[in-house]
């Protein structure tokens, strides 16, 4: 076989493998080239983060607007502190916004639901590194059931 033909086949092979990789990244992993590069960080403290993990989505009305970057424990008060990486293309949120840890379905993945607050003249927007003050912890199913049983007992 001539060297040119060989080079042609190898070229096709390498290019198709690169195409496969690109497809894997874009179509299978859903990697978004524009969304992830431009982010800013917000922090939020929760009493209980439940099953939240790094890379869990942050959603506003079901739209993914960011991801959980890291989860830490503030050692003085023993409260979990979550760093969120928010996509800049969706803009900034007012300081009156609230974050809650929600569950997709009864047993699904947990995510952070962000509810944008009202905007007023003396309300500033949250910037890089700011904290979301108003948070709601994860609902832990066992606690809920416990409370439910307790309240039934009370009524009797």
């Amino acid at each position, binding site marked *: 076989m001539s060297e040119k033909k060989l080079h042609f086949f*190898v070229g096709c092979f390498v290019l198709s493998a690169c195409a496969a*990789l690109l*497809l894997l*990244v874009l179509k299978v*992993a*859903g990697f978004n080239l524009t969304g992830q590069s431009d982010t800013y960080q917000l922090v939020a403290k929760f009493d209980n983060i439940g099953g939240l993990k790094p890379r869990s989505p942050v959603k506003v009305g079901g739209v993914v607007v960011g991801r959980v970057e890291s989860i830490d424990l503030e050692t003085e008060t023993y409260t979990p502190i979550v760093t969120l990486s928010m996509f800049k293309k969706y803009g900034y949120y007012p300081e009156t916004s609230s974050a809650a840890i929600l569950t997709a379905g009864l047993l699904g993945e947990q995510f952070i639901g962000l509810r944008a607050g009202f905007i007023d003249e003396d309300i500033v927007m949250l910037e890089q590194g700011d904290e979301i003050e108003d948070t709601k912890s994860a609902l832990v199913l066992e606690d809920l059931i416990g409370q439910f049983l307790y309240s039934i007992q009370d009524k009797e």
Partner: protein
Amino acid sequence: MIQGIVRTGASTLHVIGQLGLAVVMLLRALACAPNAKFLRLVTAQVYFLGVLSLPIILVAGLFIGMVLGLQGYNVLVGYSAEQSLGTMVALALLRELGPVVTALLFAGRAGSALTAEVGLMKSTEQLASMEMMAVDPLKRIIAPRFWGGVIAMPLLAFLFSMIAIWGGSLVGVDWKGIDSGGFWAVMQASVNVYEDIFFGFLKSLIFALVICWIALFNGFYCQPSSLGISQATTKTVVNSSLLVLALDFVLTIFMYG
């Protein structure tokens, strides 16, 4: 009893000696600066080891993907969780089956060919005659084959995973009727570029190094006879397959612990 200890000692020494030889061989082969001629030799090996392995890799990938899709569907549908089929197929392929099955097929298809080729070159004195022409066979024969294999195998693994995921979607979406939007969206939500695709690539790269190393070592140090070559070829396939599976376990512990 004493004899058993003696035998254990002897075989331990043998194994250590072989390991030493293999390390020296690899270091000598790789200690050379690439030039245009060397790149041409590597390209030729990418053709022999990569392009010519494409048929077996693609066909195997398609069938494995389809089987995975069908079995996964049958289990998941019992929990009405068939939407998660995409996740299951993609994660199984990217993390495990893609690198591992590609490596096993590569060991059988390309590793054995490497050992047989180099072994025959040795037994027909081609390697010795090269040395006499002041051409180092480690650099002229071993190094291009090593790099060619190391480049080709991860590429084959990408193609394998891609076509297998497509096979899974053929069964799940086109045959069993899972909603295609859901299939891909659930997959995208749970597959991570770094943890799944990059780690899978890392695995296949490590497997490629191991297979090429074992194959070339067995060829280069085989007994120069027809029996020696056949034994070396068998040894390549058996050793590299087992080592790939064992290494996969170790790597999985480190990556996904």
